[in-house]
């Protein structure tokens, strides 16, 4: 079998190149989305929240590029503005979930013992709730809105980040170099921040990108149920919901456009996360 070895590096290099190209493509798309959200007022031709009762459920025209919704609002403008909540929500989620999850994960890995088992129990408890249910209950307590929805989803996401970080950090903590630093008298916080965390970082980045996509799905779902973003703010999940009423009247465009926009964004972030973790693991599985 040893004679087969030379074939391997070549294979690896080829797929490695493909992965990098794909990462660039999805990355560029993500940047485009962010630009769209930031420059929404410049791009959208009309006010997304003001409708004209005289032009309800219009087909696409030169004035309304994608037509109008049941309240006579310009769909293209609403779609453009919808990218704002679509990105803002997941941003809050990954910020909260990653910082809390990473802290808890490193804490558990570093201290072991009762701290570790306590954190483990906590994660188990959160896992015993379906994440959608957890988010809905949290929204109930906090009253509906984008930020309470985002906080709710964050809580559901903490255990996943925490467990991943704990597992990775545990490997690092047991490495001789960490032991060496400790015997040299470096404090736990310094070692964690300067040495353990940077090594755990690539794992977190891949996880964060993927979580971003999944958070988008969950948040739009909550808005779809009417418990997230509230009227009249434009949001893709909300648009899918309100557009549903028009489907039976023969106008599926509002729901469809919002759905397509959402799926494209979600696929972009999830694939990006997938590719990043794939590259870190050294080649596709």
């Amino acid at each position, binding site marked *: *079998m*040893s*004679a*087969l070895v*030379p*074939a391997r590096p070549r294979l690896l290099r080829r797929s490695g190149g493909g992965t990098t190209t794909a990462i660039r493509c999805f990355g560029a798309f993500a940047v485009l989305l962010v630009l769209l959200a930031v420059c929404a007022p410049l791009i959208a031709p009309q006010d997304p929240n003001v409708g004209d009762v005289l032009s309800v459920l219009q087909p696409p025209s030169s004035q309304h590029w994608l037509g109008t919704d049941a309240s006579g609002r310009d769909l293209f403008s609403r779609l453009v503005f919808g990218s704002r909540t679509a990105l803002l929500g997941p941003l809050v989620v990954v910020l909260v979930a990653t910082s809390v999850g990473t802290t808890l994960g490193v804490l558990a890995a570093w201290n072991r013992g009762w701290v570790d088992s306590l954190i483990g129990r906590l994660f188990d408890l959160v896992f015993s709730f379906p994440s959608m249910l957890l988010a809905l209950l949290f929204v109930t307590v906090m009253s509906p809105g984008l930020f309470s929805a985002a906080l709710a989803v964050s809580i559901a996401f903490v255990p996943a980040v925490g467990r991943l970080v704990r597992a990775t950090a545990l490997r690092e903590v047991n490495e001789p170099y960490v032991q060496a630093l400790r015997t040299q008298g470096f404090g736990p916080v310094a070692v964690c921040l300067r040495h353990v965390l940077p090594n755990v970082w690539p794992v977190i980045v891949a996880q964060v990108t993927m979580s971003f996509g999944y958070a988008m799905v969950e948040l739009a779902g909550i808005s779809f149920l009417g418990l997230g973003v509230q009227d009249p703010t434009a949001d893709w999940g909300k648009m899918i919901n309100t557009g549903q009423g028009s489907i039976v009247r023969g106008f599926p465009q509002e729901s469809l456009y919002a759905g397509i926009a959402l799926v494209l964004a979600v696929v972009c972030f999830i694939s990006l996360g997938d590719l990043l973790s794939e590259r870190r693991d050294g080649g596709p599985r």
Partner: protein
Amino acid sequence: MTPLLQVDDLHLTFGGRDRQEQRLLHGVSFTVAAGEAVGIVGESGSGKTLTLRAITALHPPNARIDGDIRFDGLSVPAMSPRELTRLRRDHVGMVFQDPHAAINPVHRIGDYLTETYRKDGRKQRRDATTRALELLHQVRIKDPARILGCFPHELSGGMLQRVMIAAALMRGPRLLLADEPTTALDVTTQAEVVALIADLRRDRGTSLVFITHDIELVGALCDRILVMYRGRIVEQLTPAQLHGGEISHPYTAALLACRPDVTRRRDRLPAIAAGAFEEGWAVQ
């Protein structure tokens, strides 16, 4: 008289077309007569396992085979899938290296032993159970009836290897292929298993091809020894020649030197460096 097994100028190649060709067997030829025991020795990667698997067309599907293999005068590479299945089921028994990996963990030993009779009639299936009990007894397993109801993970490696030997003998094969059947076992069990194989095949007159990297083991078990190195057979010996020191190839001598010996004290055992004998033997 035609030999039971005749391997003639066997080449085995991986790749081709867009990928670089890797030839792993270079014209291997040997015969095994009815009732004869042939041992193949060589280091890992010498091609002995590939040779063995090619005999019943079990080589990797992406490998190409050139040359001929004849079992009882019939060409194996020319066989239809159906004929191959019959050859493997009725005429050639196989014993593998690691019994815990080679036996499916989810089925009971009894199911495993009688598996090849599943498509047969009711009577044959009942006879198969009787035969399984008998064979377990012959491979010196105590309380065979209980073992039939056990799962593989409940048995030790040595026990399981005996079960695999029993399974290989279920349909009374004319040729037994053993692929390092003792490597995964501890030393005492190794000796027992080897003795068992020797007894069983002598009693039944079954031919045997036995693969190992332990050259003295084959010297004790086999009628003829083939030494393989880098995909070709470099030397053929009888046990008498081996013990008499009539060795012509330096690789065989090196293999012999690598064995630990209780009568000699040494700080280190010699090792064979990769490709040490390549010069002069590399072809093309």
